[in-house]
């Protein structure tokens, strides 16, 4: 059986981990197979979970989150016959598949939509833990905003510097209120479970929000402009489907191969005008074809559209 290990935010964070879970569930539903899973409670458990699953014969073992890199680096060599998949991080080992996403591309698209939807010309970004990965989201977003409206202002805040930042709805809510008071009327949350508080407050205060990772449009129908889809579910699904003899190595999921995108469904259809959709789809096509290049913060630790 394959196994899936969630990161600290927990399986039901409505975001990253939940997306991973949905992928696994889809696989189970379709194949009738079963899989093992565990929600971690602490850093120290990572290695234990990896080893336990590997020893119990789980194959492949998928872990959602960059924070597993160190533990996996230790463990992978001890279980050469087990295949591992790590999401959001690159671990160089013969039996590891590393899946990374072009989050900046998806964020670019929702950034454009935010700028279009904003009446005040000020939009917000609320990140989770302040790490390069989240700056990558913010930077792509800001580039998209600027592309649609060069005069727009982007307010970016991070929730914290530790993993607790993924799971702090109160802080998400307070930061949202602060951004609203600074004029923001669209807020993009790339903050895992913290985003629940952001979306909630945005809905309470009657402004628009943008979800992340999973399709979060349904959380507050008519209040969530869209969601930046990061198809972690696909990554998990594929890993599970490939099974024990999956190809290892490095895999990039971007706009070109449907790894990222924006969500459009009944919940947000009234919010997305046809011209907005046309504009975004055009940009998406250009990015996919390589014609438009969105700057990746992690490539050089800098952002042309936003300063941190």
């Amino acid at each position, binding site marked *: 059986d394959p196994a899936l290990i969630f990161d600290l935010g927990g399986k039901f964070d409505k975001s990253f981990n939940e997306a991973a879970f949905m992928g696994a569930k889809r696989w189970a539903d379709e194949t009738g197979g079963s899989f093992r899973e565990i929600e971690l409670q602490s850093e120290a458990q990572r290695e234990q979970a990896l080893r336990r699953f590997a020893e119990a014969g789980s194959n492949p073992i998928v872990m959602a989150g960059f924070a597993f890199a160190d533990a996996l680096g230790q463990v992978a060599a001890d279980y050469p016959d087990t295949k591992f998949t790590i999401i959001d991080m690159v671990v160089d080992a013969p039996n590891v598949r590393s899946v990374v996403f072009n989050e900046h591309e998806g964020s670019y698209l929702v950034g454009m939509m935010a700028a279009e939807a904003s009446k005040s010309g000020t939009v917000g970004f609320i990140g989770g833990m302040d790490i390069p990965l989240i700056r990558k989201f913010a930077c792509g977003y800001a580039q998209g905003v600027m592309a649609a409206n060069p005069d727009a202002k982007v307010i970016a805040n991070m929730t914290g510097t530790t993993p607790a930042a993924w*799971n702090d709805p109160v802080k998400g809510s307070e930061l949202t209120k*602060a951004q609203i008071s600074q004029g923001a009327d669209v807020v993009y949350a790339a903050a895992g479970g913290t985003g*629940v508080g952001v979306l909630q407050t945005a809905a309470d205060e*009657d*402004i628009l929000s943008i979800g992340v990772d999973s399709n979060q449009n349904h959380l507050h129908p008519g209040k969530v402009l869209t969601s930046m889809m990061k198809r972690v579910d696909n990554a998990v699904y594929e890993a599970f489907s490939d099974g024990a003899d999956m190809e290892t190595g490095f895999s990039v999921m971007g706009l070109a191969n449907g790894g990222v995108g924006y969500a459009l469904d009944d919940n947000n259809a009234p919010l997305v005008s046809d011209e907005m959709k046309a504009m975004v789809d055009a940009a998406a096509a250009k990015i996919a074809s390589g014609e438009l290049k969105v700057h990746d913060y992690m490539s050089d630790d800098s952002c042309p559209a936003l300063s941190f």
Partner: protein
Amino acid sequence: MEFLTIIQVLDSTVRLATPLLLACLAGLFSERAGIFDIGLEGKMLMAAFLSAAVAAVTGNVWLGLLAGIASSLVLAGLHGVASITFRGNQLISGVAINFLAAGMTVLIAQDWFQQGGRTPSLLREGRFGGLELPFAIGPSDAEAAGRPLSELIAEAGMFQQVYSELLSGHSILVYAAFLAVPLTWWVLFRTRFGLRLRAVGENPAAVDTAGVSVVGLRFAAVAICGLLCGIAGAYLATALQAGFVKDMTAGRGFIALAALIFAKWRPWHAMGACLLFGLLQAVALRFQNIELGSVTIPVQVMDALPYILTVVILAGFVGKAIPPRAGGEPYVKER
């Protein structure tokens, strides 16, 4: 800093101070009666969970509140049985209650909702909404004007800003918490019950020989403590947030205790202390690193400030805080 920004920080101060204030008053009743309670945290957590759970299931936030209070009362009762009836160590009992709540909430939540120890997110009716005071600019005005509320408030005059942003628009529990302050003062210092309660925390033998039941009084105090912690927890889960997540009290019970010591066990001072701690939290939440001239205060300092402040206070730099004399000691008649 802009005036409106200050108002908004104060507004968030009020929101964040509310659970502290309720818990602090809870501790005040308990400790004034001589029962130390480091289990405020656990009671709040349990109440937060059960109120969210019941509100989620029934869709009725008032039922949620009642359930939260009931669960907190159960834990308060446990603390009472351990420390009053069986004269156990009050600190240990409090530690145990904190553990119990931390574990039970997740355990029940997982069993009940299968969402990794959370409750489902609460919808409108499952939450305490903001109460719009008369003449305040609120969401209804915004809807009527078809413009965002923040714009309307930004345009209003200073007085209206204070009134609409700071005073109006809080959930009913916030107003209840602040009303509880004069009420607590009045009960403690103007009623028979209050006199006896204070006496039992100072010298239970005096109360006992005056023909009043020490056990009864202490249980009453512990029950009031449970009630207030219950409201605090329900506020966290159903007003401040929209649902329960594990460990959502995040040390508020301990800060409330610190505030209680800071306040030297007096109701009005408790309000002041809680507002101060609320302000520190609001500032830490809103601003990451604070720049003061050439030095940057890292966010961790802001996060730790309430605790550092407590230690400083305890060290006696603002006068010695003398706890109720019989505090922490079980009342034992027989040597």
